[in-house]
């Protein structure tokens, strides 16, 4: 399945409908069965779907855990409360509200729009802080957000009324309206997940460095998904405020955070369907355990009251899921995947024509001038100058610790040089990693860095979709899969492929960047002779297809000597020799530094 915006919209609609119908049936059935009290629980469940699906939009696609989204629900709810509550109530409850807000009386729909706008503005700022962070630091910032917002709600008494209840909010929420809001959120989350943006963000979730090196703008995408998901959470807060009519800061704090996290973890944070399933199971479980905790009467036996039972259930669900199935019940599965089984067409596997070369019409060269990079005083790369011309295959060899990988990291923009310049054509190498790929330079990594949870095809697709934006001539994923012999494994998760296939896939992915230059870091490491001979052909194919200049860093001398037209020899951070394989083989300095006098005889 390819990822385009029209396909994403389609997937979003299908997914939203397939998920909304069972929820609507369940909740409306419950409301009809239980009356007014039942409708309250039904709407509260719908609110949880809105919240959890929204949180999943950010957490699932970006891989950054958030404890802070409930803060956006709080902001939405309080903004709604302050904007739409009758001024008669507000003049007693918050008589001195700033900006004359105690006299403002917006209608529900206008109020909701303004409240969402406020949530979006806050989210834009928080997202700006968050977008460059990952792992634990990002999670700490989201937790800090929750606590700061709670502190403000509790203490900005003139605006929010403080810790005491804010009452008098128009309690106009009905089940159909809540379901409508939920369907919109489901659509946005579903469409985002299947969209080009979603796929790129998932790639960065699997490996942020590799994604950057393929041109994916991780921080920008994180920002977008964070704002979208915050607005969704804000919508959940608004619906909740209109349901309850009375809110306190405590309603939007740790308890709600606990519950929504448990729901998301249970169903599977990556899948919209999983989020919905998690809400349904936990809501039912919670009600059952609350009923047990209240001391139910079964026939003649009355059970003792045990408050806290529903929380014990939540805690245990989280622990068990983290241990047994950290990806949740559904993992990456979506409800509309059942439809795809019928729609899938078999791939053409035989009779593929040789791909036509899409060599760039205006070739430029890659050059480094006097590049220096120190690590705590030690010069790993010490004044290196080199150049690579289009269509050339250049080798970079040197003993361990010579600075090869550092040089490659400098050339690919992963590290910045302390001094010296690196240029593609007449333009300096961009400072942001993802711009390097867009400027026409791709790379592979010594220790293979694929997007392991995406399929082989998606790995390539992520890259072509970025490349399309900056180049005209782009190879299609299907063609690349064929050219690199990966058709049979196209639909398998990249992390599950055999080693040789992973290497080939990484090179195919680099080819998909549409780059003028491709840097390969130890491509045959860990391969046997047959595999490495095959890989040599793969690299030649890459060279032919793209007309790209290729730099290969390798330990395997015979591999380099048999593949490259020109070779640089690096030792102790400096280039000590340069020339054709024959010249390098016979250079006494190279023999001295790299090969050693004994081994030199064997080479001849």
């Amino acid at each position: 399945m390819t990822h385009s915006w029209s396909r994403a919209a389609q997937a979003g609609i299908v997914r939203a409908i397939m998920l909304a119908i069972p929820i609507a049936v369940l909740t409306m059935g419950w409301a009809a069965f239980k009356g007014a009290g039942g409708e309250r629980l039904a709407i509260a469940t719908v609110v949880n779907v809105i919240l959890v699906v929204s949180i999943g939009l950010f957490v699932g696609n970006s891989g950054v855990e958030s404890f802070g989204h409930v803060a956006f629900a709080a902001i939405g709810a309080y903004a709604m409360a302050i904007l739409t509550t009758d001024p008669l109530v507000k003049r007693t409850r918050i008589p001195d509200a700033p900006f004359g807000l105690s006299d403002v009386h917006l209608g529900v729909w206008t109020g909701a729009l303004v409240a969402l706008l406020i949530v979006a503005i806050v989210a834009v700022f928080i997202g700006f802080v968050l977008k460059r962070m990952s792992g634990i630091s990002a999670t700490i910032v989201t937790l800090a957000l929750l606590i700061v917002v709670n502190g403000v709600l509790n203490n900005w008494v003139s605006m929010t009324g403080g810790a005491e209840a804010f009452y008098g909010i128009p309690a106009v929420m009905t089940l159909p309206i809540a379901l409508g809001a939920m369907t919109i959120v489901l659509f946005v989350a579903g469409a985002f997940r299947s969209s080009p943006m979603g796929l790129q963000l998932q790639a960065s979730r699997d490996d942020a460095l590799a994604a950057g090196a393929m041109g994916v703008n991780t921080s920008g995408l994180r920002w977008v998904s964070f704002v979208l998901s915050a607005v969704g959470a804000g919508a959940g807060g608004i619906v909740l405020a209109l349901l309850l009519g009375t809110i306190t800061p405590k309603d939007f704090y740790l308890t709600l955070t606990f519950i929504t996290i448990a729901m998301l973890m249970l169903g599977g944070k990556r899948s919209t369907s999983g989020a919905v399933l998690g809400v349904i199971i936990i809501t039912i479980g919670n009600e059952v355990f609350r009923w047990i905790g209240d001391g139910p009467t079964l026939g003649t036996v009355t059970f003792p009251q045990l408050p806290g039972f529903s929380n014990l259930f939540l805690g245990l669900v989280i622990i068990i899921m983290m241990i047994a199935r950290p990806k949740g019940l559904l993992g990456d599965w979506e409800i509309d995947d059942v439809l795809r089984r019928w729609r899938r067409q078999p791939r053409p596997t035989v009779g593929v024509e040789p791909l036509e070369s899409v060599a760039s019409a205006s070739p430029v060269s890659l050059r480094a001038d006097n590049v220096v990079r120190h690590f705590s005083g030690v010069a790993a790369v010490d004044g290196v100058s080199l150049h690579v011309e289009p269509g050339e295959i250049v080798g970079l060899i040197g003993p361990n610790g010579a600075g090869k990988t550092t040089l490659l990291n400098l050339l690919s923009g992963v590290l910045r040089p302390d001094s010296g310049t690196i240029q593609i054509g007449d333009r300096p190498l961009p400072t942001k990693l993802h711009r390097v790929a867009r400027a026409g330079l791709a790379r592979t990594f010594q220790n293979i860095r694929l997007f392991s949870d995406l399929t082989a095809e998606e790995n390539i697709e992520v890259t072509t979709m970025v490349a399309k934006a900056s180049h005209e001539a782009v190879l299609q994923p299907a063609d690349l899969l064929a050219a690199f012999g990966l058709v049979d494994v196209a639909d398998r998760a990249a992390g599950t492929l055999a080693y040789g296939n992973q290497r080939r896939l990484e090179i195919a992915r680099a080819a998909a960047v549409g780059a003028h230059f491709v840097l390969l870091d130890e491509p045959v490491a860990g391969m046997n002779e047959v595999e490495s001979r095959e890989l040599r052909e793969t690299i030649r194919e890459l060279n032919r297809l793209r007309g790209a200049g290729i730099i290969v860093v390798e330990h395997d001398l015979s591999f380099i000597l048999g593949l490259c037209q020109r070779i640089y020899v690096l030792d102790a951070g400096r280039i000590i020799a340069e020339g054709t394989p024959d010249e390098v083989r016979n250079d006494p300095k190279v023999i001295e530094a790299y090969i050693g006098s004994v081994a030199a005889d064997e080479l001849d």
Partner: protein
Amino acid sequence: MSEFLQQLVNGLSLGSTYALLALGLAIVFSIFGLVNFAYGELITIAAYMMYACSGLGLPWIAQAVIGIIAAVVASMLMDVIAFRPVRHADGTTMLITSFGVAIAVQAIVTIVVSARSRTVPQPEWSSESLSFLGLTLPSYQLFTVIITAVALIGLVLILQRTTFGLAMRASAENFQTARLLGVRSNRMVSSAFALSGLLAGIGAVLILARTGGALTPMMGVAPVLKAFVAIVIGGIGSLGGAVVGGLALGVAEIALRAYLPGEISGLTDGILFALVVVVVLLRPQGIMGLKERLRT
């Protein structure tokens, strides 16, 4: 001036409790990357154990010892039951697991005891105060500072002078390498949890002395959040940083409470957490953190 000194003493006393708690959190984190949110529940468990003992009429010192032992045992149990199975998972999976443990323990305390608050009678001396150079020093503050100092010195001696301490410091630096060199991983992790529980238990005794013995099932949440802030400020993963971060946090908190204008003094916690965001942004390695290690 004496007002300032008084506040400084208050700050250091509060800060030394935070330092102790932060250290307990940092020991486990530095060994295998778990930010243990359920650490706060160890405090709760110790406190409720003291409550149970006081119901049996045991003297205060016996309550304290049993409470601390309970926290140690509970900490090691948490490791075996919940954290060992996810030990090799990523940091956020472990963090969320600990979240689950925290909720479960709170629920169990609610079920077994009550959701309502309880009180452990504190010894009379804890509510007295000493006058000293024009400063009024509540004796619980003096007690806190002394206990913290003893605990920290004891810990430093263990870490610096014993083979076990060496193994633990090596594991904190690089757990994988330490294991390859023969440090037994399960034993090391269990010991880290035991030490962590010990510090939480001591922290519980100090917190009860400060609050006059009030207990609720949620009582562990606020301290763990503070300890969290302290290790972030001090440099997550650094043991020395945890102590410095805790002291700095205590002083900052007292200063904010004392000198913020009355109408926003309730915002203290909010401001402290905003501070965390600033620290994470400007110095992700913390004020005491090691220089960023380069990995490519």
